[in-house]
């Protein structure tokens, strides 16, 4: 089976500092890959490069075999790649429901109301569905980000700390949503600080530090990798 997402030697620097520095990896169909690493290690920048929010200085990104390295963001989204943002990027002057509809505005618009109702139930947002998105709590905002992803019915999903600050019970809801999408063959790339959560759900982990991939493998493998300990704890690798 060919890779859904192929990243080759991707690099981008800001003001002389390499935020992402020669990153290469592949993600297979229906795989859930976790990306961990300390703050500033380039995880979110990587997502921004994959979705053309920023243009890479070098390297290549392929989605379903197609080169999308310099494809505009909206075309990438239409090709089936959906994402959340590290800082919730909601349409703050629209209601929760309208936010969900908007996620379907380029997709299944007719089916949007029904799907939105399902998503609202699934994410426990029904009671705030007519509130403005800007008035939601931090956790609810992340849930709504997740909801927009569900509305897009994506084939590849990039989640950027989608469970941060979310109530533990709702965290299970998010995990359930991820599993549900995966059962429909969706592929995931997940940035997460909560190792427990990643352990729960990820098939494979990628560890980043200073813009580079320092380790890759199963949860067991990477937690015993000295590079990872160094990246996280500052203990030099022996």
């Amino acid at each position, binding site marked *: 089976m060919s890779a859904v997402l192929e990243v080759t030697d991707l690099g981008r620097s800001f003001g002389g500092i390499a935020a992402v520095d020669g990153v290469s990896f592949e993600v297979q169909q229906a795989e859930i890959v976790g990306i961990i690493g300390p703050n500033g290690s380039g995880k979110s920048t990587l997502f921004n490069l994959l979705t053309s929010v920023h243009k890479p200085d070098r390297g290549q990104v392929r989605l379903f075999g197609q080169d999308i390295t310099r494809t505009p963001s909206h075309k990438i989204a239409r090709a089936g790649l959906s994402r959340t943002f590290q800082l919730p990027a909601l349409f703050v002057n629209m209601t929760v429901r309208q936010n969900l509809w*908007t996620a379907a505005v380029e997709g299944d618009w007719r089916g949007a109301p029904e799907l939105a109702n399902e998503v609202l139930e699934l994410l426990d947002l029904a009671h705030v569905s007519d509130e403005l998105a800007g008035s939601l709590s931090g956790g609810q905002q992340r849930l709504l980000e997740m909801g927009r992803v569900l509305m897009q019915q994506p084939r590849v999903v990039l989640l950027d700390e989608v469970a941060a600050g979310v109530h533990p019970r709702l965290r299970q809801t998010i995990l359930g949503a991820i599993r549900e999408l995966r059962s429909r063959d969706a592929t995931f790339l997940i940035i997460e600080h909560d190792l427990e959560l990643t352990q729960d759900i990820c098939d494979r982990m990628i560890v980043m530090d200073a813009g580079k991939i320092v380790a890759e493998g199963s949860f067991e493998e990477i937690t015993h990798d000295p590079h990872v300990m160094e990246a996280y704890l500052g203990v030099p690798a022996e």
Partner: protein
Amino acid sequence: MSSDDSVRKRAKRGPERRGAATTSMSSATTTTKTAEAPTTGPRGRTIRMAGLIAFAVIALTLPLWSTPYWIRIATGVALWAGLALSWNVICGYAGYISFGHVGFFGIGAYTTAILMQPDHGWPFFATLPVGIVIAAVFAVITGWPALRLKGAYFAIATWAIAEAVREFTTVADWTGGAGGLTLPIGPGSNYFYYVMLIAAAIAYVLCYALLERSRFGYRVKAVRDNEPAARAQGIDATKVKIQAYVLSAVIPAVLGGINAYWITFINPQSVLNTIITDQLVVMVLVGGLGHAWGPAFGAAVLFLVNEQFLSSFGSSTSYIAMVGVIVMLVVLFLPDGVVSIWGRSRRTRLVRQLLGRAADDFRSGNAAGSGGGR
């Protein structure tokens, strides 16, 4: 934004059935408390419908029972309500502050005036579509680069564009230069009243249909609220912004054409005067930014005040100064416009958030890619 309230109330019924209510000339009824909203919904709609019908009857029969003076005033109010609406489209809905809208007004006026000169001799109504096309093309050409700019950059770019249009008409021969152009004398004032009224009404219905009841409105508002997120939903933000800009450009072009025929003499000082933009800004700010009928209200009030000034002082220069003072006071003390006085607190918050978002855009625009700017 205009009828977010009503949209919210009807939200459960889904996009395809959204918006049974009308544009809202009477959406003051939505000032009921949130808790009562579900029960007052149908009644509110009846009142709105009744209000709209009453308004339509009054507006349509005005020439039958009114004086020529008031018909002229009403024509002016319709003109300015339409212009304010167009400014609200780009500013309130799309989140871009344009100081160059007078340029489109002037383009429409000059198109009609030039085509109706004896050597061309076009009939009046044939000139309006030409004005629309020229304004639309001009909006695309100028909007395409300008809409990549944020906040102040866009504002000043549009200002410069309008100023360039004025310079051009002043210098060029076929626009009559500074001397301007004279048009054939048109039919009577009732004719212009109805034409202006219908044009403004069409503009309101069109904008309402496009921005409140179609996918397009969702796209525009999504781009306004958060451009990167909108792109991540597959929305072609560049295209949407240009479409919104074109929509907001063709309205003043049509109204400008009608206005030219109405006043029969135009020159750069009359139809490309920056005071027109000044007025639009103050009308929309006073009425309530991003509110559907607020600008119409602001337009009516401001136009009447302007008339009063003209008849009292015989010059409009002190009026300009007063407009400036009003803008300053509104920004300082009434940032959501007069409608916020009797509007619900939610409305107030909504506009503030829109503005807050614009501020963020502005900051990130200054420091694109640095993740937050200063």
